[in-house]
């Protein structure tokens, strides 16, 4: 399965990943990043098709979509 990691040190909660993901992998959450922003959360890892749109569109380069080996 794929693992989507959002780095809470850098996420600014812009929600572009959430909006852009074709598979609705992300959900808003209550947890705050180190910068104080409300972060999205990768909820539906299993739906991910590894298109990496989220990675490419994240302005903070703080998402990684990894093969969970």
């Amino acid at each position: 399965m794929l693992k989507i990691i959002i780095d809470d040190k850098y996420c600014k909660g812009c929600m572009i990943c959430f909006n852009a993901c074709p598979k609705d992998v992300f959900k808003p959450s209550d947890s705050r990043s180190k910068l104080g922003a409300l972060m999205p959360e990768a909820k539906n890892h299993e739906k991910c098709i590894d298109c990496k749109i989220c990675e490419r569109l994240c302005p903070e380069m703080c998402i990684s979509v990894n093969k969970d080996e």
Partner: protein
Amino acid sequence: MHELAEKYLRKEALPLLFCPGCGNGQVLNATVRAIDELKVRDDLAAVSGIGCSSWIPVYLDIDVLHTLHGRALAYAQGLKLSRPDKKVIVFTGDGDCGGIGGNHLIHAARRNIDITVVMINNYIYGMTGGQKAPTTPYRSKTKTSPYGNDENPFDVSKVVMAAGGTYVARWTTNQPVQIQKSIQKAITHKGFSFLEIMTQCPVQTGKYIFKNQDPWETMQWYKDRSATKAEDIEKGSDQFLLGEFVEDVEEEFCERIARERDGLC
């Protein structure tokens, strides 16, 4: 942090000082990928002017010259001419490049000097807080056009083509892959290349022009209004064309100078 960020960004400068959802980060993202793919890190220097967009290269862990407002291309030309064996990429804003810096732009294009220019068009002066840019749409309200902009917006890519740029392309932040590929093409291209990237500035453009500060909404607005075929664009509408507009082969400026010097030896 993404592994490429880990590899190519200056850690001590993070987090990026861009507002949440700013398109500048996305351009940085694409740039890092382009550098990685081309493996040009050691042969590439970045130059920028002043503006939010001019901060893009400041995070790149390569040689970087962060210069004065409007002068990025003048510095870039000096740098390139002093080391014609190296590559120079410029990050600049619509104001930095098309406003105060317009003269250096047209002359650099005319000379066909081998520089890659990435111009971030967010329709506004972001860094100084939302004043009118030369690209601001007609009738749009900004801090310095509170009753609506009386000026026609500047089609910078068009002028660059008229001035002689040999690679010219335009994308929005909806096309991260095309941005990356165009940057790679532009760096590889021998001659003056110009990339116009339409980005969201959720804080200033969002507030004043689009009246919507959600970055995604601006990206959607761009998606709805852009086309890759001229036929698809309605005349008089606010639609605009994306794509690679020019790809010309013409002897490059530094090569001409080198050839001339060779002739004198």
